[in-house]
């Protein structure tokens, strides 16, 4: 029932393609007996009308090995099918309602997915390597450069076109066209102007103002110097009223450290401290990460991003790393209720260097 249909071209080329040894009923006929292209008219295809010489053998070199491989591949494909069904089952069966259930679901979905893909991949690889006949074909490669006549002809076509366009002959047209493209290229960039406001002097200021309270980050409670009695500790403070404003916090976030009496030294500005408590900007002067690590024994403030190290008792001067400047010091004092407040804004821009900083 699966007789090879007679090809409409000339019969097989007997020389280099002996008929396949034997065929099992139900398998496709040998390749040379087939044509992929039905009954084309053959017009216009030129030499494509004759059947191609046979390159690929119809059967693998080792039929016994191929048979074994076939069983393995089929088993792998069945495994893949089962794994995919398992994936669907895991999706339907495992509801998400807790962290543990997410873990279970991820394991089940991931494992079944991996097995499904892996079995397909291994199966297909064995198929290619052991069931398809081994072949190595050689294809000729021709120089990419065309022959001189073709290049010449193309050059002529190009020159003719250039001439016909009058582009060369009429310099006024050429120059005005070029002139027209320049603003055309600039226009879209101008269109982007409203992406943001101009920087102006924004980077010079933070929201700190005279009398603004320092709130403990997280608890958002004001701090009285007496209660803040953890010498050696460092806490993060934010300006009162701005604790939920990321834009304000990105520049105004600061740290306070309380030292043992006598430890603070210049260039720390003593008038800006209260009760041996000093306040520095937390924004690293390198590229703006929070300088969040404090080493109690050495009194070093360390930025975990690029490891700039600041000497806390000495005006946060730079000890090591890529930061070019000390962390700016915030002048602080206490208000009528005895809580820590700012005396003013920082006296210099906080954070990384920028062109207009000066």
């Amino acid at each position, binding site marked *: 029932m*699966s007789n090879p249909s007679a090809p409409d071209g000339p019969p097989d080329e007997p020389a280099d393609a002996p008929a396949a040894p034997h065929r099992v009923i139900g398998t496709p006929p040998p390749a040379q007996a087939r*044509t*992929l292209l*039905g009954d*084309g008219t053959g017009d216009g*295809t030129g030499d494509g009308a004759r059947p*191609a010489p046979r*390159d690929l053998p119809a059967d693998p070199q080792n039929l016994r090995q191929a048979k074994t491989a076939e069983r393995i591949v089929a088993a792998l494909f069945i495994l893949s099918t089962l794994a995919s069904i398992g994936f669907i089952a895991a*999706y339907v069966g495992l509801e*998400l309602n807790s*962290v543990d259930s*997410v873990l279970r*679901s*991820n*394991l089940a*979905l*991931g*494992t079944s*997915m*991996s097995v499904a*893909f892996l079995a*397909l*991949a291994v199966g*297909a690889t064995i*198929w*290619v390597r052991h069931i*398809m006949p081994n*072949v190595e*074909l*050689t*294809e000729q*490669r021709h120089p*990419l450069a065309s022959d001189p006549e073709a290049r010449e002809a193309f050059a002529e076509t190009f020159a003719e076109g250039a001439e016909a366009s009058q582009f060369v002959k009429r310099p006024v047209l050429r120059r005005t066209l070029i002139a027209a493209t320049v603003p055309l290229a600039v226009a879209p960039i101008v269109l982007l102007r409203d992406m*943001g*406001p101009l920087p102006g002097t*924004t980077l010079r200021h933070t929201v700190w103002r005279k009398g603004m309270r320092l709130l403990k*980050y997280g608890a958002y409670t004001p701090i009285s110097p007496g209660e803040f009695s953890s010498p050696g500790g460092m806490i*993060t403070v934010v300006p009162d009223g701005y604790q*939920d404003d*990321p834009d304000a916090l*990105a520049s105004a976030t600061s740290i306070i450290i309380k030292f043992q009496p006598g430890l603070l030294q210049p260039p720390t500005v003593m008038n800006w401290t209260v009760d041996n408590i000093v306040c520095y900007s937390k924004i690293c002067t*390198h*590229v*703006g*990460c*929070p300088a*969040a690590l404090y080493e109690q024994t050495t009194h070093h403030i360390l930025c*975990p*991003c*690029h*490891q700039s190290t600041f000497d806390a008792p000495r005006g946060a001067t*730079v000890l090591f790393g*890529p*930061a*070019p400047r000390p962390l700016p010091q915030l002048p602080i004092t206490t208000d009528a209720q005895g809580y820590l407040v700012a005396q003013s804004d920082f006296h210099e821009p906080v954070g*990384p*260097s*920028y*062109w207009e*900083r000066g």
Partner: protein
Amino acid sequence: MTLTEKLLEGTGGWLDDRFHGAKGFRTLFRKIFPDHWTFLLGEIALYSFIILLLTGTFLTLWFQPSMTEVVYHGSYTPLHGVRMSEAYASTLNISFDVRGGLLMRQIHHWAADLFVAAILVHMLRIFFTGAYRKPREVNWLIGIVMFTLALLEGLFGYSLPDDLLSGTGLRITEGVLLGIPIVGTYLSFFLFGGTFPGNVIIPRLYIIHVLLIPGLLLALISAHLFIMFWQKHTQMPSKGRTNTNVVGAPTYPYFMAKTGAFFFFTFAVLALASTFAQINPIWLYGPYTPVAISAGSQPDFYMGFLEGSLRIFPSWTWDIFGHTIAWNVLIPALLPLGLILTGAALWPFIEQWITGDRREHHVNDRPRNVPTRTAIGMATITFYGVLWLEGANDVIADHLNISLYLTTEIARYAIFIGPAVAYFVTKRICLGLQRKDLHLLEHGVETGIIRQLPSGEYIEETRPVDEDGRAVLEARRPPPALPGGPDAADEEVPPRAMRGGLGRVRERLNEVLTESVPLDGHGNGYGGHGNGHGDGHPAEPAAIPSGEAAGDGSGDDQEDGQA
């Protein structure tokens, strides 16, 4: 006729009727793909990209690119009641409330890492085997652009969930932008819509991440593959492979099946990693706030070298004429990447100029056969590697229990010494391997069989290298001589290209670049140009002289003496 056959015939006919495709499709089906394991590297990149598109599309179904503040009430109880951006909340939602969401998120992240890693290694393969040479320079350039886009794409994607780590990455990006002279503050204000962090950066990065860069990548990948297809694949040297042919398996059905299998392998590996190896657990980092940071946090690996570069560089800044120039940010952020990418982009043309080699190359070099190029590549890897390690110096210092500052100090020296050492060591190794190749060709392979000659002398038998091996070993071709080089010494006046200072530089560079063990001698003393050594040696037999071996008649590989 079976149904399958009918379908096949019908499809073929249908396509040809509409697209006149019979010849074209046949050529396509019979297109030859040479085999070499390194040719899979580019495929890994391609398939990672496809997997990124698939998983990324899934993620967009739930992800909210918005910085509007919400209070979290999802399944992840530790963050209940915490204020966060919608971007972060929706990422938590994908992770904990969408079935398969965590898996897809992790596959997406692993695939991004694999994508960049595969591109990197693929580019190294292209470089070390000289596959970028004429006529493939354009594809090399496209590759460099795609690599740059992949880095950006990764950085932007990493920033989207708005967790503490990703926000810190953006903060560093802001710091770097601010460091650019004259336009830096404007760039930063325009990108962030004002001061950092603002409330527009995530939607802006989102559209760049899901549309602009993937679209560009898709277009460039298409061009990359089309050019590869049109110029035909390069091949590694082996028997029967020449500059005018391509040897391998045809596309249909072999390459199609293999590459299909490889897609599933890639997907399976990523799925396995995502099942068993957690990546980017954003719920542990918490939502972004400019106030906080976690110690020991690392960016994705491909950003590591930039991070290291920022750490290693000293704190140089200039305050002049009322302006600040932040060399401490500018140089480390732009120089290493700029140096590597610009150098890589120009290299094919520099090499062409130095060697004067304008021929087409379709058979790849074995890295040892071009020692200077290989040495330059290894020096670059070392340069990159030092920066990359420095990007993790806190982790290294912690594990090795050494001072953090010491690691940076070491890296500050290693960044100069390392590449130089790598250059010279690599060059020596390559030249040594060349000598080994020559030795194998001349004396054959040691068999481990010791034989006593009638005279009482013991010798070790050798076996000539087989034909396949010879084809590989003999693949080295001497580079073409420069016009007016020593090989053309009989001409009194050097040609114009070789005159003057530039010509002398070119000649000197040519000597360095073409430095190899001479093919005609034993290779003692190297230097590209004839050392008069070859003439003294008549062609030697390829193995133990067969006259002796035949003496007791036990030689396995007897062959006629060549001498």
